[in-house]
């Protein structure tokens, strides 16, 4: 036995104990601070959209048809309010010679993240003869809708939106127009008058200026469209939505027709 053993002993004890301790110790997580700790700037503004070159714009037009016999518009008796005068027809289906009116057509997809200026001019919604004019309205988000009452009776305007705020305001005869706007996109936002239950119209709020409503001849036209691939949506208040894909080249004029089948009832 010599001194070496003694020191070997101590060393052994130290090493053994340390090893054991290290083994037994809970593994400690070292806090490694993240390397570049700057808060991310939230994507404040979308990349500037490529400006539309007026020289290359294309347009889309077409006709919307109604397959099948034109449903007979139910007559509405408006006699409960003498201010309304006479008879009226429901405007759910306005079909003349197979052409379907009051279809809202808009570019649903394909514009990317372009943003468009909101027109300063208001869109006018008129109440006349206890009917709304027009029955289907397109408007850009944020654009002013001017609501007038040309009837000798009081109306109330009551939009019942899904994605916008609901309101309900009374408008006595010959009172000033009500000006409102809708901030969020919403298709076929119903508007009604509680005092005249047949009065009903739809506002379509979209983000682009590329929309149209078919007229009595079923025709529509969308102008000023930059070239690209688009999804065009045709929406009818009862018959729902139908989409079409279309590609327009520069200065193109495309015709996109669409037809609706009668709703199965």
């Amino acid at each position: 036995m010599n001194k070496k053993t003694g020191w070997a002993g101590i060393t052994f004890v130290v090493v053994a104990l340390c090893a054991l301790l290290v083994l037994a110790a809970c593994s400690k997580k070292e806090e490694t601070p993240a390397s570049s700790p700057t808060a991310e700037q939230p994507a404040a503004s979308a990349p500037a959209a490529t400006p539309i070159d007026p020289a290359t714009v294309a347009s889309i037009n077409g006709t919307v048809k109604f397959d099948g016999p034109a449903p007979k518009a139910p007559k509405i008796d408006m006699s409960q309010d003498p201010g309304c005068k006479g008879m009226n027809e429901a405007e759910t289906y306005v079909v003349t010679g197979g052409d379907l009116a009051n279809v809202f057509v808009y570019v649903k997809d394909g514009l990317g993240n372009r943003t468009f200026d909101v027109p300063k001019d208001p869109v006018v919604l008129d109440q006349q003869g206890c009917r709304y004019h027009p029955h289907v309205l397109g408007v850009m988000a944020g654009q002013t809708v001017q609501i007038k009452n040309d009837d000798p009776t009081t109306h109330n305007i009551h939009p019942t939106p899904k994605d916008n705020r609901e309101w309900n305001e009374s408008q006595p005869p010959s009172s000033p127009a009500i000006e409102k706007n809708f901030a969020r996109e919403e298709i076929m936002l119903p508007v009604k008058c509680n005092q005249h239950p047949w009065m009903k119209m739809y506002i379509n709020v979209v983000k682009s200026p590329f929309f149209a409503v078919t007229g009595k001849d079923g025709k529509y036209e969308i102008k000023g469209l930059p070239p690209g691939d688009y999804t065009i949506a045709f929406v009818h208040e009862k018959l729902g939505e139908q989409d079409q894909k279309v590609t327009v080249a520069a200065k193109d004029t495309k015709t996109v027709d669409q037809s609706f089948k009668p709703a199965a009832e």
Partner: protein
Amino acid sequence: MPEKPIPEQDPITGKSFAIHYLIATVILIGTLFWALYDEAWGQRPWKAFQDQWKDRYSAFLNTAKSTSAKSEQSVEQDPQYAALKQDYEKAYESSKAKGDEARKKLDDASARLLAVQSVFTDRRAYVNALTYELETSTSASAKASKQKDIDAYKAEQATVEFPDGTKKKFTFQQLEETYNEIRDERTRLSLELGDVLKPVTAAKAKMDDYISDHMVDLTPAQIEGLKRKTTDWDPKIVQINVAEANIVDRCESCHMGTREPLKITEAAMTSKGSKKPDEYAQAFVSHPEPDLLQIHDPDKFGCSPCHQGNGRATTSIEKAHGNYEHWLWPLYPKENSQAGCQSCHSADMVLASGDVQFNTINNGKDLFRQRGCMGCHRYEGYDKEPEDLNSVGQQIKQIETQRKENVKNTADLMKQADAAESNDVANELNTKAVDLRVANSKLDGRLQQLDFQSHSLMQDQKKVGPNLKDVRLKLNKNWIPVWLKKPSDFRPTTKMPNFRLTDRQIQAISAYIWQSAFTDELPKHKPGNAAHGKELFEERGCLACHSIGEGDQMQGGTFAANLSRVGEKANYDYLVRWIHNARQRTRPYCPYEKKDIGPEDYAKKGLPYQFDLDHSKCPNDGHELQVQNMTVMPSLRLAPEDAEDIATYLMTQKKQEPSSYAAAPFMDDPALKEEGKKWVRFYGCGGCHEVSGMEDEGRIGTELTFEGSKPIERLDFALFTEVAQRGGKGSEPIKDKDDLARLPDGPAKDPWYDHKGFFEHKLAEPNVYDQGMVKGETEALRMPNLHLTKDQVLDLTTFLLGSQETSLPQSYQYKPGDARHDIQEGWWVVKKYNCMGCHQFIPGQRTILMGLKQYQDVQEQLPPKLLTEGARVDPEWLRKFLSNPALSATDTNRNGVRPYLKVRMPTFSFSDNELRKLVRFFQALSQQPLPYIPEEVPTLTAKETDMARSLFSSTAAPCLKCHATGDPSHDKIATAPNFLLAKERLKPDWVERWITDPQAVSPGTSMPSGLFKAQDNRYVFAGPTPPTFNGYAGDHRKLLTDYIFQLTAEEQRRVAASMPRAKAAVQPSSSRRRAAVETHHAASGGSR
């Protein structure tokens, strides 16, 4: 050793230990530094968090500041602001010259004052010292000499050098005077300056207020303040210390953003370049519900009372969150965080703050009740009627003994008094006797109240499942065993859980309930019109509770049964009775005798066989009877023919013919009955159903009131203890695909040996802990599979996790003694009867009916919103209405207030108890005091009446166009209640608010806003006013309200007649709008 060569040098004394010491010392020093490091940083990871916070939050604030600056700019561009600014500038300009001058004068006066002051105070100090000596001198001569000194000193002239260089000499007296003079002058000047500057400061304040009023976010200046605070932050423990509740929470040492006034998201705190938010980003977010923190001030409540975790610990995330083995209160997982509400709000049925509903915990509480969990498990507060009934019974007994005692004592006292020796004694005894009689009279009153109580409680007692004493009358016999096999096969959404019964058990149970059921005869009904029945079913509001259609086709509420296949199981005659009045019982039950009372019992006493809420005493012994079916299903006050139509329609709801069920002859086998009884008792069927012979069975499950704080060791994971502790692949015991889909987080990957894991697995597959165990029939776990969805499991788990015995002091419990208690109580009733299926109580709450397709276009056909019901109606009227919504004893097949609604407010037969609770609830919910003292409505003068009438019927305010008048031809198209109800029903102040802005009171109502506008401290009509109004200075709104409250039927008729519309309505057209047609249809249905 001898063999080894002996070294030259003595190894003991010759050896040096220098190197050993060196190494040991180095290591020791290293260790010391390690210990220091560990103390300073290793044990304090929050320091790193705070460092990160400083960096990231300042960066975030920079961004926020620029956005804020932008919005400030846009506010500043507003013309209104420009005007204010101009005002300010003008004021500034105009006051500038004057102000400067005043300021200059003030400065001058101050300087002069300073000059005088320095000399004056010095001399005054000397005078004071001398005076002191004078006062303390003892001899008269010394006093005299001192006085001389003082006078001499005072007379001495002192020189004051003024700021302008002039020097003046003053005696002490003059000095004092001058000093006071200048001081007063300065005060005067500074007031003057204030006056001059006043318009400027006012204009400036207006300007600043405008900005802060119009900025949604913080102003750049405020953000700058935050930034300074952040960059100047010294790392330190942030601690909330509430001694009274023993709360020490240091959570905010890492969660620095919790209470910041800005909304801080994970994304905003993620450092640039890294995609996923790291632990710092996750820690720094602000509290998701800042409004909650307004009510629960963190400085009082801390964090851990709601979230749990180890608030003290700061050494590591696991420690701080309490996610380690020996901490009993680990942090609630994020998805279960609402469990924390339960520790103080266990007495609340609905938790909502403003329009934020805490739906996880609310749904958990609902499910616990609706799914009948409390049928087997006791839980404080749930289904407490039986317990209350018991205690009422005991009180009655006690009082009766007391009463007897008193009677005896009275007689005794009187006897003693008669025999008393003196009058005084006799009088005293007589007085005592009289007192006892009074006491007894009080006791009688108390007894009466207790009798009412028990009557109410009997009425309030409900069971989740149907009364099985009626099975013979109600059900297709052969259907029963099929149903018991697996109820969800027949009806996927049923509340009836799957008990995993063997065929033998099914046979025995069916046999027992069949053989123990009533055999009374039911009145026969002729078949009705199914098409009309369907219409009624959809219109009357059945779908608020019941649903119809399966899978994607399903429509309606989940509160009550899905009726898609009801035609296969039900008996038509019973169904008619049920629809007509579900509460109608076949035979009453006497809990005292523990038997069902039949006509024979009544006949014995010569009484007619009549039992209902007004005839609820047992003919045998006068005890209170259970006279109703213990169901919450109300009566819709349908005509008997309508009930037949609906029943006929429902009988058509079937997938297969009732006759196609295999015959089950064993159900008549008397030999099976006893065994069946055993199983019925074993599975605790009596918890949810009324079963003959099981009326007094106790709950078979364990109490769950404090299940969340049960030590984990007491939760029996059985063979999965190890598996759950380790987690990893294959640690998921549930194999069944359907059950697996119920787990909120999917199959287990991480260790799940905790309360959450236990509850989730147990709820997803209640017998999971039997897996692998060999157990006998009566040993296996009894809890049935409730076929819950993922979300439901999450909700219930949250509820159970929160069911803890709290260590918080009593004062932290939400047990208010004021009106808020009425709200608490009321919600239990509201939820019990599913009022929220039809009515909106909380802003933003969706009712079942709102979701139905048929109401999408005609929202005005929805039942009224009750957001401000308490403020709207007179509580006395409300009580009447709730006990009879038809508001008429005879004409009941209609709505009392809104006859134009097709959906019907049913009669719930609320007990007095519940009526009281509901009325108080509505009043409290709208902060209305009780009792209600009606506001005086002034009587209008004839002129005022004329004016009001002209407004009331003007084209611009055609009130009667929509409001019902009682004229049937008009009421067909009316869409609002009759004004004649207003006087008794409404509160005038509410009516004023209502006609001003109905959209604010009941969003979406047909009543338009904008009828009145504010003008010179009053409201005037917004449209053209009739000429009579010229020169009227009163409030139009008030005038109209007063008129409405004075409206008589005759007046209304007169006004209606004067309106042009009445003429037109005479000729009903065939092509009315759809709604009108439907109204007509409904009306004809009623009188068919």
